[in-house]
C-alpha cells in the first residue's frame, strides 16, 4: 500500500451563491468551507464529524468530483479532483444515502445493472459482481423487487451496494446510518468494517459519536467550514484536557468552590451547566491523582451532592471543540 495520502486537501474553500429577488437579483454568498486542510492515509476509515451545516457533505461532494472548489486544491489518490475527474471517477465510490438517489420503479438488481454499465464493468463479470454485492449487503432475496417497496434500511444497503459495485479504491460514505433502526445500523457498520479489510479507504461522515468511536481510528471535526481538530480518539481526548471526566451534581455551587476545583492539579477544565434547580460541574481530568472522593471532600456544604467518574467520551470531545470554536 502506498504511503502517499489517499486524500490531501489544501486551503480548500467553497462559497455557494444564491440569488434573491425577481427583477433586481441580489447575490447572496454563503461560505461552506473556509480554508480546509486535511490529509487522510490509505486503507483505513477516517471519520469526519461536525454539526449540521458544518460543510461535511460539501467536502465529500468536492472530493467525489460532484462539486468544484471555489479555491484551494483537493487531491484524491494523488489526482486533482477539479481537473482529473475522468481518471478519478471509476476509482471513487460515493454513498449519499437517504430515500432519494435510486430508480424506485425498477428492481434493486436493475438499478445495479444500470450503474454497472455506466461504470463500464466488464460484461462477462457484471452479473456475477451484482450477485456478489447483493450477497454482501444481504439483499439477494429482495433483489428482484421494485425499490419503491424497500424499507429505509434496504435502500441504504442498495446505496452501499452501488457504491462498491465497481470496486473503488476509495469510498465516501455520507451519514450511512442516519434514519436506520438499530439493527440495520449495526449491520451497516459491520459492512463498513468489512470493506476496510478489503483494502478500501473510507471517508465517513456521521453525527453519531459512538459510530465514529467504533469505526474510525482517526477523525477530524469540522465546524463552520473549518477543521477544528484532527487526531486519533485518545489524541482528541488529550486535546480537550484528559481522558477522564468527573461530574458533580448539587443545588448550586459558589464561585469560590469552582475556583478551588479549577486549581486542583490534574484538572484541565471545569464547565458548569444548569439542569432545572440543580447544577452540574464537569471536570476534565488528566491524571489519576484527582479522585471523585477527593472532589466530594472539597464540597462539604452539599449534603445532596452526587459525584461520578467516567471515561471522557467522543461526544464530550466533540462538544468541547465545537463550543470552543464557536466562542
Amino acid at each position, binding site marked *: 500500500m502506498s504511503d502517499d495520502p489517499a486524500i490531501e486537501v489544501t486551503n480548500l474553500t467553497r462559497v455557494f451563491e444564491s440569488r434573491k429577488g425577481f427583477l433586481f437579483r441580489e447575490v447572496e454568498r454563503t461560505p461552506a468551507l473556509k480554508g480546509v486542510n486535511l490529509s487522510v492515509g490509505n486503507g483505513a476509515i477516517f471519520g469526519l464529524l461536525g454539526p449540521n451545516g458544518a460543510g461535511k457533505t460539501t467536502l465529500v461532494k468536492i472530493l467525489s468530483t460532484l462539486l468544484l472548489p471555489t479555491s484551494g486544491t483537493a487531491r484524491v489518490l494523488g489526482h486533482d479532483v477539479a481537473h482529473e475527474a475522468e481518471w478519478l471517477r471509476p476509482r471513487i465510490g460515493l454513498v449519499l444515502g437517504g430515500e432519494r438517489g435510486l430508480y424506485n420503479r425498477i428492481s434493486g438488481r436493475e438499478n445495479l445493472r444500470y450503474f454497472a454499465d*455506466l*461504470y463500464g464493468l466488464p460484461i462477462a463479470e457484471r452479473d456475477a459482481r451484482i450477485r456478489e454485492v447483493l450477497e454482501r449487503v444481504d439483499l439477494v432475496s429482495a433483489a428482484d423487487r421494485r425499490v419503491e417497496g424497500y424499507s429505509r434500511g434496504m435502500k441504504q444497503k442498495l446505496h452501499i451496494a452501488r457504491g462498491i459495485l465497481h470496486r473503488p479504491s476509495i469510498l465516501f460514505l455520507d451519514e450511512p446510518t442516519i434514519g436506520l433502526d438499530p439493527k440495520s445500523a449495526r449491520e451497516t457498520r459491520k459492512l463498513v468494517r468489512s470493506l476496510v479489510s478489503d483494502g478500501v479507504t473510507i471517508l465517513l461522515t456521521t453525527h453519531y459519536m459512538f459510530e465514529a468511536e467504533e469505526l474510525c481510528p482517526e477523525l477530524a471535526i469540522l465546524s463552520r467550514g473549518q477543521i477544528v481538530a484532527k487526531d486519533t480518539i485518545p489524541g482528541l481526548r488529550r486535546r480537550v484536557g484528559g481522558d477522564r471526566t468527573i461530574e458533580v451534581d448539587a443545588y448550586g455551587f459558589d464561585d469560590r468552590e469552582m475556583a478551588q476545583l479549577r486549581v486542583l492539579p490534574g484538572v484541565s477544565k471545569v464547565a458548569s451547566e444548569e439542569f432545572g434547580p440543580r447544577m452540574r460541574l464537569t471536570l476534565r481530568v488528566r491524571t489519576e491523582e484527582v479522585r471523585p472522593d477527593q472532589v466530594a471532600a472539597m464540597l462539604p456544604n452539599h449534603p445532596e451532592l452526587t459525584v461520578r467518574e467516567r471515561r471522557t467520551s467522543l461526544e464530550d470531545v466533540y462538544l468541547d471543540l465545537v463550543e470552543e470554536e464557536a466562542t
Partner: protein
Amino acid sequence: MALPESHASRTRATMAALRLSLLTFMADPQWLVPSMIAPVIFGLVSFELFRGEGPYFLTYAILGAGMMSMWGQTLYGSGWATGQDRVFGTLEPTIQAPTPYLYVVLGRIVWNVAAGLLGGLIVYVVVVVAAGGPPALPNPVVFVVLFLFVMVTLASVGVVFAAAYVYTRYAGFIQNVGEFAFYVGTGCMFPVILLPFWTNPIALLFPPTWALDALRYLSIPGYVGFGWGWQWDLVGAVGVTAVYAAIAGSVFHRVERHVLESGNLSDY
C-alpha cells in the same frame, strides 16, 4: 478496475439508458395514454377533420395526427427524463459515473424516437383502417426515410433541451412556455408558410421545420412550401441538424462543468 474510456463503454452506457427507459416505461402505466391511446384518438379525429378535403386528405390526416403523436415525446421526453433524475436524486450518481451524461441522454433519445415512431405507426394504422386503404404516396420509400429523419431532427433539438434540464431545475418552465410556439412554429401542426412572414426566418433555425417542409413536398403533390423543393429542404435539414448535434456536444460539456461549479445537481 473498469476504465470506460472506449467507445464501446459509451455505447454500453447509451444502451443501458435505453434499457432503463424501457423498464421505466413498462413499470408506469400512465405512459400508455400518450404513447398508445392518444395516437388512436388523434388518428380518428384527424381522419374526420380532413375527410373529403381533396385527393390527398389521407396523407394530411396521417401527417397531422402522426406529428401530434410523435413530436412531444421525441422532443421533450429526454429532457423530462433528466428532470425526473433531479426529482429522484439520481442525477448526482449518474453524473458521478465515469461515462459523460450526454451518452445517457442519447440512450433516452433513441427510446423516445422509438416510442414516437410507435405513435406514428398507430396513427397510420388507424387512418388506413378508417379509410379502408392506404394513402397514395408518390414516393413511399423516400417518404419513410424522410419520416424517420423528421424524428432525428426533433431528437437533435431534444438533446439541447435535455442539457437545459441538467443546467437548471427551471427547464420545465422554459419548456412549457415554448411548447406550443415550437409546435406551431416548426410546422408540426400546419405548414410554416401559412404563418406571418416574419416568423419564417425564426422557424428555419430549427431542424424540424426543414424536414417537415420536405416531407410535405414529397408526399403532397402541388404543396407550396418555402419554394425550394424537398431536396433543398433535406440539405437544409441535414445542415441545421449537424449544427444542433455540434452544439449539443459542446453545450453538454459546458453544462456539466457549470453544474459542478454551481452545485445545484440535487435541487429539484
